[in-house]
């Protein structure tokens, strides 16, 4: 009895649906119920609506489920509207002062319409030239952005080691803004050159109102972000971003070969080819994303390491919902948590850092609310 849980397979009905959309007609009402709850836990409710619509599967849902999906679409549409308004303010204000900003991740998806379907973003991420960082920060503070309240230790940690400054919040609109000067922490063993990213950035439209990374770099950034992340509560959502980014990038089979070579060459140039490899591998494994065959051939890892990572990612790229969390899930999370920290920092920095973070967490547990 005690060990029954260990052997029980974790069940994500959402993952099954994402892999094989054709199973939708077989779902019962309680199965849709579970599927939507898992999607909500994975921040994928809005996106699920688009995926079901794309495969003409909305007709199989009970009315109550449709109501919840429609509500999620309304929420994400409203959020996209807010992001566009905020981006407009930021771009025109900073450009006016001779400062360059480039939108990353969620905001970039919304502004370009690539991978924006039903996307929920908790904040706006921008990339700036490190030489302009202080000026950007100053200018933002002039118009109502302030650093969020965090501990002194965290503040120092951000400034010394991170690829971004502490999050800023707009005091009137409560929008949260992450200002980056690179796409991976400065402690990482392989650091991409941020200038190369900025050199090839693209305008979102003819009026050059906003800038985002080039389509290739958007993929690579999303990949490096997901596969260096230690806590994957948004992992499945990020993987569906990659799925959409790949589909957008490989939209013409006759160009597949050339594009995939370009993508790998760029990844090598930026020092992040391993992340690209994982992104392709797990999109293919977890979401059955159709990819050019040559993309899946090369393997930078030894087979044992790959076996362990396969196990870990298959069990963590699921909704963070009780119905998907068993022993395999917990173990995988733990391994990936350690892996991400070891990759991001040498041990002489990591050990003191983790002890301080764990102590901070322990203290919080005992605070009487």
């Amino acid at each position, binding site marked *: 009895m005690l060990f029954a849980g260990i052997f029980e397979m974790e069940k994500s009905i959402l993952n099954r649906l994402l892999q094989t959309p054709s199973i939708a007609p077989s779902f019962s009402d309680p199965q849709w119920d579970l599927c939507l709850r898992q999607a909500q836990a994975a921040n994928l409710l809005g996106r699920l609506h688009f995926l079901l619509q794309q495969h003409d599967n909305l007709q199989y849902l009970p009315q109550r489920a449709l109501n919840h999906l429609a509500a999620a679409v*309304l929420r994400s549409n409203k959020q996209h509207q807010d992001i566009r308004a905020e981006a407009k303010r930021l771009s025109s204000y900073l450009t006016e002062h001779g400062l360059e900003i480039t939108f990353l991740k969620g905001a970039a998806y919304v502004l370009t319409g690539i991978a924006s379907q039903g996307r929920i973003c908790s904040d706006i991420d921008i990339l700036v030239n490190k030489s302009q960082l202080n000026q950007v920060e100053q200018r933002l503070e002039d118009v109502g952005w302030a650093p969020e309240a965090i501990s002194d230790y965290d503040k120092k940690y951000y400034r010394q080691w991170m690829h971004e400054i502490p999050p800023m919040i707009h005091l009137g609109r409560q929008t949260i803004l992450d200002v980056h000067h690179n796409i991976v922490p400065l402690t990482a063993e392989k650091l991409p050159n941020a200038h190369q990213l900025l050199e090839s950035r693209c305008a979102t439209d003819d009026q050059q109102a906003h800038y985002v990374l080039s389509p290739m770099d958007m993929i690579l950034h999303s990949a490096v972000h997901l596969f260096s992340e230690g806590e994957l509560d948004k992992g499945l959502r990020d993987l569906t971003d990659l799925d959409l980014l790949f589909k957008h990038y490989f939209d013409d089979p006759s160009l597949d070969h050339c594009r995939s070579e370009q993508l790998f060459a760029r990844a090598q140039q930026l020092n992040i080819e391993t992340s690209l490899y994982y992104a392709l591998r797990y999109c293919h494994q977890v979401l059955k994303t159709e990819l050019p065959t040559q993309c899946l051939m090369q393997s930078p890892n030894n087979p044992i390491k790959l076996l362990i990572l396969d196990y870990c990612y298959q069990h963590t790229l699921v909704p963070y*919902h009780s119905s998907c969390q068993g022993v395999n899930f917990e173990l995988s999370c733990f391994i990936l948590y350690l892996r991400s920290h070891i990759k991001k920092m040498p041990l002489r920095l990591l050990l003191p850092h983790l002890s301080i973070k764990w102590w901070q967490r322990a203290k919080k547990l005992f605070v009487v609310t």
Partner: protein
Amino acid sequence: MTLILSTYSKKEFCRLVKTTGLNVKIGPFNIKLTSNVPTFLDNFYFLYSDCAIVGDDQYIDFHICLKPPSIVRRWYRPQVNFFINEFRPFKPLPIDQTMAFFEWGLNWTIAQQALQYLIIHSAVVEKEGKAIILPGMPGAGKSTLCAALVHHGWRLLSDEQALISQDATEIVPLARPINLKNQSIEVIKEFCPDAKFGQIFAQTSKGDICHVKPPVSAIEQIAVNAQPFAIVFPSYEHGLDQTKLTTMAKGETLIELINHCFNYTILGLDGFKRLSTLVENSQCFSLSYSDLNSAISTLDELY
């Protein structure tokens, strides 16, 4: 015949809610309730006893769970958490306020998630199929007036949230317990001798709170929608000699109502269209009162 909550013995009800969870229908929503807080189970069993039970083969809109945060906090200054689909939107509250926590939590959940309705912060009562919407800021006396009306010939549609349908021609009933605060508890106890009162929760963040059980008739007719008829902004004014009913301009009513909506902004243009249709089809008034009898007869005269 539909199965209702009081068909279960209290013991059986408690067993279900503590273990598998129990599916109940509250207004148009299917809710799965799980909890192991004994006082809450008592209160819920009393206040919601007429609600229909929903089968396990149905889609459930909201999975709600009320549980203490940890073993420690079950004994030391006990607290309770509110979970909606495993998500915890609020900080824990003292465990003896669990019933009030459930009501607030469900209000919040509906306002956030039920975007198929335009939702106005207001009481709604109905007579002859025609509904009066009574919006009011906290303290305006909307719940007091609502409790008085539903024990004097009106049907309770909602004490807290008016659910406006897609084309704004109908209001969907959400008959739940009426939430009385502070002095109004005594006022209604005196004014409505046949009202059924739940436990009094002293010193919550909103003062003393007591829930009045919805009349059976309101639950029996839960599937019957009502047509908008009038919008009346009540305000209780202590010591006023005469009840005053003043006609309000439609434009003014619309602007005022926007401030009382929970989800107007997110519905965008659709929200504006629904609200203007609603105002277009309703008579609009403000009502100042201090005497409940005279307020009731003033509203009676509208019909």
